[in-house]
Structure formats: structure tokens, C-alpha cells
């Protein structure tokens, strides 16, 4: 060794002296730089994704939250026996009786043309008249008495209270004139109109009157449709996957089947709608627009995803478990159903629920099978006409009345909550079934 004090033992003499541990040469700097760059790109990508998410959810919330607030009005109504023909209760103009009560409340008189009464009628929901009819039908003795009726204000009045219709807008450009706005201000001031949580939005079904329209029918329709989808797609998909993965011989035919399943997963959903129209409606005569036909179509759509998810979950089960079961003399089927499938269950569940969540949000194929009709109620059976949440969103978005637009956003919020609940269920199920090996 030429320089024993500098070169540590083990380094051959004549080799260049090693740099100190803290020295950074050009190559090292380059390596650090590229790593920093990569991390920065990753952070940037996440930030961009988060911005999109916040904008999306924020916009929907801002547009939709006001739906959850509503303005209700309580008014004493005198059931004038002169106006009620007891032989034809259905034919009575209850709306006018309500208008009379409102005019009395506001201290105004109707003119000969009925302009005042129609202006008053434009402020309260037609629900009032309907409520009167139901109550009178139930109890004839109410005629001649005064009853208290509570209901929501008309959508336009609601929009005024929420600041969507402004007094500063020119009178001819808004749906309510100055007199109507004055009345609304008075009703609000004297406490006749109250602000509250809009339960009707959750308990009512679709309606032509925006203030009465709700998502109940669509939620039930979606739930019924998903039941059909789950009952078909999950057992069929899981069994197909188990057969393909565990039992089927590996040959050209199974390769072809596998490729086709993967391709089916990528087929645009509207194509499934066309298939459903031809197969289920035209050929098998399943009722149009029913939860049954919707569920069948979505089951076809979800099937490839369920198969693919199940197969990958089965593949992830360690072969040592299969060997263990076969080694003690379990048959192939016992091995699969006692050991492999239970271990794959968390993955199967996750895949199945995610594909159901996907099916829940599907709109296009349902439009093809006639689910776009106006359905003012929850479906009574799997074969009656139904509407579902995404289609309800689609219908309301196309409505001309402005009050429907805030309902569109609110329905989207309900749909998102439905999905979050399903995804949470997927996570919980996965945790519960998860076992380590």
C-alpha cells in the first residue's frame, strides 16, 4: 500500500481514492433529480384529479342542496258547502276553495275575470286541493267547517324565497309579478310560510309539479332492478368463473371464451340495451320499462365484469391451499367449494358490488328498453313500469321548468349517496370475509 493512511484496507493499491460518503457526483445528482421529478409529477396528477373531484361534487352540492330546504304554508280553509257537490266529490274545484282561503288570508277580493284567484293559485301547490279531496272523501262531516291545511308553496314561489327569482329582474321576465312577490313577502313575514327540511323529496315520486316531485319511486325502482341484476349476474358470473378457472380444460375453446368475455366487458352499454330490446322485449315479451327487463339487461352487462373479478380473485388464492385440500383426499369440487371459493370471497364480493354500483349508474341501455316514461309512483311489482335514479336525473334535466333543475342535482346527490353506501358495503364485506393465510 502506497498510502496506508488514506486508503482503507481491502482497496487495492493504485485504485482511485473513494469519495467521501457525503460527496455527490453528477450521476448521483441526476438520479436524485429524476426521482424528485417523478414525485412531483405524481403529486401534480393527484392534485389535478382532486380539483376535478372537488369541482364536480361542489357544483352538484351547490346546485342541489337547496332542494333539501322547502317552504311550507299553513292556511285555514273553509269548506264552503255551496261549492261542494257531495254527489260528485271528485269533480269539485278544490283549487278554487284553496284560493278563496288564501285571498281571505291576504285580504284581497277576486275580480270578475278571476285574475286575482289565479294569481293566488299560482303561489300554492296543487297538493292543497288534493289534500282537501282526500280529507272530504274520508269524512263528509268536514263540509261546512274550517280545516287547517299544510303544504308546500308552488315551485316558483319556492325559488323566490331561495333567491333564484329576484325582484330586480324586470317584471315581464319573471314568472311572478310584483303583487305576487308582495304577497309572498307578507306570508313569510307573518309566519304563515315556514322553512323546513324537504321530506317530500324523499317520500314522493315523480310529478308534473316540481314542488311535489321526489325520488322515492326512482329509488325503489333502482333497488328492485338491482335485486334482479344481483340475483342473475352474481350466481351465473361466479359459477362461470369457477368453472373456467378451476375445472375447464385449458384449450383453444376456453381461450376463445376467455377472449370473448374480456371483449364483452368492453362493449358499450347501449349495445346491451339494443340486445335487451331485441331479446327480452321483442322476443320474450317481458314488459317494457319494468324493473325485470332493466335488471336482465344490466345483468348481461355486469356478467363479464363479475366473471373477470371472480377469476382474478380465484387466481389469487395460493396454490398451497388447493394442494392441502387435494392432499387429504378432497375432490376437485370439495377443494373449490370448501376452500378456494371461501378464500376468494372478499375479492368476489368486491367485484360483484362494484359491478352492481356500475349498473346502478347506467342510463343508456335503460332508455333503449323504454324506461324513460313518466311514472308517478313506485313500481308495485317487478313487471310494472318503473323509473330509476339515473333515468330520473335524465328526465328532470330535460324538463323545461327551472325548478326541476335543482331537483336534478338533488337526485344526483341521492344517486351518489346510494353508490357510496354500496361501495361502503363492499369494503365492510371484504373486511369481514378476509382471512389471512
Amino acid at each position: 500500500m502506497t498510502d496506508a493512511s488514506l486508503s482503507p484496507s481491502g482497496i487495492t493499491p493504485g485504485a482511485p481514492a473513494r469519495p467521501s460518503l457525503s460527496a455527490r457526483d453528477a450521476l448521483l445528482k441526476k438520479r436524485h433529480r429524476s426521482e424528485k421529478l417523478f414525485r412531483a409529477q405524481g403529486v401534480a396528477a393527484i392534485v389535478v384529479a382532486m380539483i376535478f373531484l372537488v369541482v364536480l361534487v361542489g357544483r352538484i352540492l351547490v346546485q342541489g342542496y337547496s332542494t333539501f330546504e322547502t317552504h311550507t304554508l299553513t292556511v285555514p280553509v273553509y269548506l264552503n258547502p255551496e261549492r261542494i257537490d257531495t254527489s260528485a266529490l271528485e269533480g269539485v274545484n278544490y283549487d278554487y276553495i284553496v284560493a278563496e282561503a288564501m285571498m281571505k288570508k291576504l285580504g284581497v277580493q277576486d275580480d270578475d275575470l278571476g285574475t286575482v284567484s289565479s294569481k293566488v293559485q299560482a303561489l300554492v301547490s296543487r297538493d292543497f286541493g288534493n289534500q282537501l279531496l282526500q280529507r272530504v272523501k274520508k269524512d263528509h262531516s268536514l263540509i261546512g267547517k274550517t280545516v287547517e291545511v299544510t303544504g308546500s308553496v308552488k315551485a316558483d314561489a319556492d325559488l323566490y324565497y331561495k333567491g333564484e327569482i329576484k325582484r330586480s329582474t324586470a317584471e315581464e321576465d319573471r314568472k311572478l309579478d310584483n303583487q305576487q312577490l308582495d304577497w309572498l313577502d307578507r306570508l313569510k313575514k307573518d309566519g304563515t310560510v315556514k322553512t323546513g327540511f324537504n321530506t317530500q323529496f324523499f317520500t314522493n315520486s315523480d310529478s308534473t309539479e316540481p314542488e311535489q316531485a321526489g325520488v322515492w319511486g326512482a329509488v325503489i325502482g333502482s333497488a328492485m332492478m338491482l335485486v334482479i341484476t344481483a340475483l342473475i349476474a352474481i350466481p351465473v358470473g361466479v359459477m362461470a368463473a369457477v368453472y373456467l378457472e378451476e375445472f375447464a380444460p385449458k384449450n383453444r375453446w376456453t381461450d376463445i371464451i376467455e377472449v370473448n368475455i374480456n371483449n364483452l366487458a368492453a362493449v358499450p352499454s347501449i349495445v346491451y340495451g339494443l340486445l335487451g330490446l331485441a331479446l327480452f322485449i321483442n322476443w320474450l315479451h317481458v314488459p317494457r320499462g319494468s324493473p325485470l327487463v332493466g335488471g336482465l339487461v344490466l345483468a348481461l352487462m355486469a356478467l363479464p365484469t363479475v366473471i373477470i373479478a371472480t377469476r382474478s380473485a380465484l387466481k389469487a388464492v395460493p396454490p398451497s391451499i388447493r394442494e392441502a385440500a387435494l392432499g387429504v383426499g378432497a375432490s376437485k369440487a370439495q377443494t373449490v367449494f370448501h376452500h378456494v371459493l371461501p378464500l376468494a370471497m372478499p375479492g368476489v364480493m368486491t367485484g360483484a358490488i362494484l359491478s352492481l354500483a356500475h349498473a346502478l349508474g347506467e342510463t343508456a341501455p335503460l332508455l333503449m328498453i323504454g324506461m324513460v316514461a313518466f311514472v308517478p309512483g313506485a313500481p308495485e311489482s317487478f313487471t310494472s313500469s318503473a323509473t330509476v335514479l339515473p333515468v330520473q336525473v335524465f328526465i328532470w334535466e330535460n324538463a323545461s321548468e327551472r325548478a326541476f333543475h335543482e331537483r336534478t342535482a338533488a337526485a344526483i346527490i341521492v344517486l351518489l349517496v346510494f353508490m357510496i353506501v354500496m361501495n361502503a358495503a363492499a369494503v365492510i364485506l371484504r373486511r369481514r370475509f378476509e382471512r389471512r393465510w
Partner: protein
Amino acid sequence: MPTENRDDTIAHAPALAAAIPAGHGHVTTGEFKIRARDVNVFYGEKQALFDVSLDVPAKSVTAFIGPSGCGKSTFLRCINRMNDTIPSARVVGSIEIDGADVNAKTVDPVVLRSRVGMVFQKPNPFPKTIFENVAYGPKIHGLASRKDELEAIVESSLKKAGLWNEVSDRLHQPGTGLSGGQQQRLVIARAIAVSPEVILMDEPCSALDPIATAKIEELIDELRSQYCIVIVTHSMAQAARVSQKTAFFHLGKLVESGPTEEMFTNPRDTRTQDYITGRFG
């Protein structure tokens, strides 16, 4: 290179040596549990075993040694037809257990595997409780009709596997929560529970520490009195410690087999000698 079966005798049965012609014949005695003749195994196009002929004595331990990829595990898996699970695998030749060909069409691998248990390299208990692990085999084979019978089988199996004292108070806890050595003994108990005649062990100690290994070896020695045990091992020392007969495989061929003591002290083939003395492998 033709297979060489120098000596089919085991140490305590020298009289049989003359009775058994090497390489062929159909003499079946109580002393030999498994008789393999001209076994060839193919994985697709690749041949993994060449003309292996070997007799495995009953109620003793036979060790298969050899470098990695020499075919000893392949041969082991032929005995209980675990190779059936590999689609490309093809087995030619005859393997008889008590004179019955295991590859015969009439033999159901499910029945075969209940008589030929197997213990794998990595402990692989089911992710279930200790009790369920041991009870699974008897349950599917219908060995117990009542719950107390099943409990008796589980207890005696765990006792035979030397695990009872350690787990008797936690039978309903997961088997995967045991230590590696305990798991391997649990797996042995699971194999014993279906009352097999043969137990195949594929490098059962390679994932274990020396203390756990010593326990397993002790257990193997105890089980020898009741079962025909075949063990694949990488450890020459282990083969010398636990086995009465040793077979040396190299490149898919059975190079030589014979009583363990003789094999280690006086190997006939130079390859065996080189391997045993650590010159390759």
C-alpha cells in the same frame, strides 16, 4: 445411463434381498409398500423422470435426496397422483401400492389420497381453526358419524403429531396463528387424521428453524412404526438421521438406492459420492 438398483433390501430384512429381482418382477411382500417400475414422467415435451424403478419398504422411512430439479419431488407426487393436477403432466410406468397400480383407471385419486397422505414444503394449514384443520379429512371421508367420534379422531391425531399438549386449550383458534413448526405438525396431524398407510413428505423442514426441524424429525421417527414414510430432503444430514433407506436422484434418474447407512458410508456411484461429500449440488 440405465437405472441402477443396487440393493432393495432394508437393514433389518436382509433375507429378502435374494427374493427380489432388480428392476422387474411382481413379487409383493409385506415388507415393500410401494413398488415403482420404469416410471417416466413428462411435463409437456420435457421429460422429468427416466425409468425410475424403486421399492419403498413398509413401516420405515425412505429418503429421496438429490440436487434441485432432479425429479425427486416429481416422483413423490406420482405416488399419490398429485401430478394429475398439472394438465401437461404425463406419467408412464407402474407404481403399485400393496400390489395395486395407482394409475389404473379404476383407482379414484380421492380414495388413493386418503390412503397416501402428503405434507408439503411450506406449512399449509387451512385458514380455519386447528380443530377444523384436522377434522376436515375425516369429515369428507365419512370417518366419523358423530361429533364425539370426530373429536376423538382430532385428539388422537394431534397427539400422534405431538401437538396436543401445545394446542389442546386453543383448538378453536386459527391454525394459521401457530408457529411454522407447529403448523407443520398440524399439517402432519391433518394427514394422519384420515388414517393413511403412506405419508409423503416434500421437504417438510426446509421452511423451519433447527429446533422445529428437530421436533419434526423426532416425530417422523415415532411415526415410522405405523406408517410407510417417504421424505424428500435437501439435507444430507436429515436423510442420514431419519431414514432407513435412501434413494439418490440426479437429472431425472435414480442413480442408486440402498440402506441409508451403507449409502452414506460406502456409495457405489461416483456421482452419489460427489453429492454426499458436497462436491456438487
